[in-house]
């Protein structure tokens, strides 16, 4: 797909990848809105960056580790306290693999 022309079909595919359900209005608005944003960000193509290293973090910290020691942690009850469905000390989810 040519980036600056995201079609409704592309949008449907992306929403599936992202696990989102779009409303009808979003389905009709998003192709134009997202295409406009992509056209805008494509202004970066004016710059030659072949020899430029990418920056992912800015303060230069490296290899930050801490002692591998157990400490206080949340109880199972606390961890489960916001779950919609639970069973004893387990979260209940939909089956991923069918028999």
């Amino acid at each position, binding site marked *: 797909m040519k980036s600056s022309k995201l079609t409704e079909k592309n949008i449907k595919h992306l929403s599936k990848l992202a696990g989102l359900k779009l409303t009808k209005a979003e389905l009709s608005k998003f192709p134009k809105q997202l295409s406009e944003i992509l056209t805008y960000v494509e202004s970066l193509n004016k710059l030659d960056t072949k020899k430029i290293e990418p920056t*992912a973090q800015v303060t230069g910290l490296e290899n930050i580790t801490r002692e591998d020691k157990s400490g206080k942690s949340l109880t199972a009850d606390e961890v489960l306290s916001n779950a919609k469905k639970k069973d004893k000390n387990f979260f209940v989810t939909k089956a991923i693999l069918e028999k």
Partner: protein
Amino acid sequence: MNIDQLTIVKAKEGLKKKEFSSLELVEGYFKNIKKKNSQLNAFITLCEKEALLEAKKADKLISEGVKKSLLGIPMAFKDNFLTRGIKTTAASKVLQNYIPVYDATVVDKLKKAGVIILGKTNMDAWAHGSSGEASDFGLTRNPYDRNKVPGGSSSGSATAVASRMALAATGTDTGGSIRQPASFCNVVGLKPTYGRVSRYGIIAMASSLDAIGHLTKTVADSALLLGITAGQDKFDATTSPSPVGDYLKNIKKSVKNIKIGVPKEYFREGLEQNVKSKIKAALKEFEKLGVKVEEVSLPHTEYALAVYYIIQPAEVSSNLARYDGIRYGLGRKMFAGEAKRRIMLGTFTLSSGYWEAYYLKAMQVRTLIKQDFDKVFKKVDALITPVSPTLPFKIGEKTADPLKMYLSDIYTVTANLAGIPGISIPAGFVNNLPVGMQILGPHFSEDLLFRLAYHYEQQTGLYKKKPV
């Protein structure tokens, strides 16, 4: 006790001298909240009962001679800071019932210092927005003009501090979300250096850009709070081991002969004339203080917003992937429009075949933007720019056109891309609407930013002005 003119520094003094109690303070703020919040909508959750109880406890401790730096001081917290036992929503319906079981490091530190939580402030959902209009719990209004936006995403925090519904409030800044609302509401907003303040327990937006700060009435209050919130945290590996300064103590040090750069790229087309003239006038005030002002250039500025709107949605899409409705929250069907737009954008730019063209390219240009700042800070000590290209805009003016809304961040995103600190301070009024000015400095130069901001603030006294 005059709440209108109260600051944290003054409230500390008043409590110490027993001019008023913490209980009176907290009651005073709830009185203001009850009077104003129904119209401004700055809060999502209020904690009146708990706050009054905490205030009584604080008064008891004070009477016993217990010393803590913020004992009995009431504050509001942006609703993306996890607060144990207090509903935390990030202004999204996905989290409308979410009750955290632990405190963010910053919340923990402030509570240990004696802070009392008044409530949780409104925001653009997930911190996605520049106007406060994208909250799933209704928009927040600008206290200086209720038909205008207060800025965002820390909309409720800025409004609460400006309208005297809180003494100070926390905020998060990923592309300007503290500085821009501060400038729209005539308050002081600090975005610290990346890694200066722990992000642990704060609902993540874009992890390589998120900075944790606060909104206060004065520069001294801002310095006081950073002294408490800053520092290395074993729960956030990006926090820096560099020592935390005594920001408040150094604030009055002279700023004579400090060199300020004015980047010409921030004063071009798109900047409203009346905002520009306020910033130019502010530069004259700095010169009166003995500061040296010179024009400088940050040549890659024009690309910053494009870099930001690739990196930020990409990181957003990955951070919001965890909301599956299984462990907590109500699941992906509850995401509203702006979050969906950003997740979709990020999913696209990170997808196979596009990653190099978008995300990698943006990370490379990010290097160029960072190098611009590295170079300029060899010549000058700090930079001064506008915060927002426009005055606070009308509610509804930009909601139909996301790209137009995104352009609101044009002068603020650079600091997040480079990881440098920035402070937004009041610079005057145009048509009774606040205008803010931004001071930027090299990594970990908060000390200098506070000093410059403090001297300007004392010279102009703009912080004393409040909404009618």
